[in-house]
């Protein structure tokens, strides 16, 4: 069974549950070096996504991604709304009319997502933002796809790299986003957007893995 729109919708539903679960944790991270709303913002956005998915059945993976993108853009606000929105939107564009995903498409989607976030937010690697999780994830995904990995394999590689990238933001001094106002006081805390990026990829990877093994998500 291929990884089609229905599979992706199931994965997004599971992701929505993960975000709801991580809400408090992400908000606490944001309270340390931001304004304490990151978990709240994403939870609001993904709860709207779940609501929309109850009444719509997008036909292609690209349309699933576009639905997530526009919903996040119109409900999240803050810095992460336009950035995650852009990420899903660019990913959607890359997928085109494909009925099913494969490893190469997923990797290309992640690269486009990363490029979109960088273009919009102008953060570079090491600025202590979601880019520090998303960029290594896109690179690892590309490598895995080139080595012939399938959807689950590519997402697993991306998730692992994102988790490492997020963890590695702790010692950095922020140069973008609210945390940058703290100067040196931003050092020693994990960036909330990098952490949420890692959780998103972890959830998507887990869904793909159980899809591959036929386990219910």
């Amino acid at each position: 069974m291929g990884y089609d729109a229905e599979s992706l919708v199931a994965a997004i539903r599971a992701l929505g549950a993960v975000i709801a679960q991580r809400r408090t944790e992400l908000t606490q991270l944001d309270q340390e070096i931001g304004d304490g709303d990151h978990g709240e913002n994403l939870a609001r956005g993904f709860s709207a996504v779940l609501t929309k998915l109850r009444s719509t059945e997008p036909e292609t993976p690209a349309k699933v991604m576009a639905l997530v993108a526009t919903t996040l853009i119109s409900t999240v606000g803050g810095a992460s709304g336009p950035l995650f929105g852009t990420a899903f939107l660019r990913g959607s564009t890359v997928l085109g009319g494909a009925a099913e995903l494969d490893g190469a498409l997923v990797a290309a989607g992640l690269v486009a997502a990363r490029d979109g976030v960088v273009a919009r937010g102008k953060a570079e690697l090491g600025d202590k933002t979601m880019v520090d999780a998303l960029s290594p994830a896109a690179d690892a995904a590309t490598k895995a796809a080139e080595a012939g990995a399938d959807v689950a394999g590519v997402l697993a590689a991306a998730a692992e790299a994102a988790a490492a990238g997020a963890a590695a933001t702790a010692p950095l001094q922020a140069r973008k986003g609210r945390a940058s106002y703290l100067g040196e006081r931003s050092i020693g805390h994990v960036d909330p957007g990098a952490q949420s990026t890692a959780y998103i990829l972890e959830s998507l990877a887990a869904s793909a893995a159980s899809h591959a093994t036929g386990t219910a998500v």
Partner: protein
Amino acid sequence: MKKIINDPATVVDEALDGVAAAHADLLTLHRNPTYVTRAGAPIAGKVALVSGGGSGHEPLHVGYVGEGMLDAAVPGAVFTSPTPDQILDATKAVDGGAGVLHIVKNYTGDVLNFEMAAELAEAEGLRVSAVVVDDDVAVQDSTWTAGRRGVGGTVLLEKIAGAAAARGDDLDAVTAIAQRVNSQVRSMGMALRACTVPHSGEPSFNLAEDEMEIGIGIHGEPGRETRKLAPADEIVEILLSTIVEDLPFASGDRTLLFVNGMGGTPEVELYLAYNSARKYLHGKGIEVERSLVGNYITALEMQGMSITLLKLDDEFVELWDAPVHTVALRRGL
């Protein structure tokens, strides 16, 4: 958490209903998406001013919607910038054919969401320009960072640019005046006690009874530095010396001095600080020609204040003194 609310999720919506009901003569509240327009909008031929940002800074921005100031305000969730669709719809609702100025405080979220909205509006054929306010000297500026925050200067800019639009300036002229205000205004804030965001329920930072936070923003972010609590004169000097050196302001300069409460500071302390600030500036030969003292850009119930200093010239004075009729600022109307 000690708040007069029903449910953290509905705080902003319920409060907006209250604002709309209390000020139905001045404002119209729109829903799906949420934004607020002034009575009589759109005004044909007038440049429209749209601002917005997270809620929790009241009276900013909704309190400045009305004749002589903003045409629309777009409130987000508490401390969270609004979304592009809200901003887009507000922009379309108040465009009177002369273009729309977006007044954006320099926070990544506000900048990105306003940018997206402007792109969408331009795609629909509207003329939109933007000014990004970044007056907070507590933040080190650099092209490599997110830059300085927009704080107290925003209020002064909205008033002055609003008066320019009201007298009939075109979009380029209003934008230029707004940018000129931004280039001549500097602010810095401090807190005695943090605020609590309703959905979090916990104070956004913790200070000991003998500590204060210097260089705070308006979103409950911790500041640059925690210091021992000091007398008002010393606090004022910490803030004003940084402000004065930054522009820099010099002896003989004419200024507007704005002492702003963060929401939980009694007026008696604000006027005391204002008095101290005047003395400090007097000592530097800087003249205070106009003044604003009160809660104008807040961070919920945070205890503390910010000081904003704007360098005045004749045009700024004329526009500052021009009539205005909003919930929070009213003069000559």
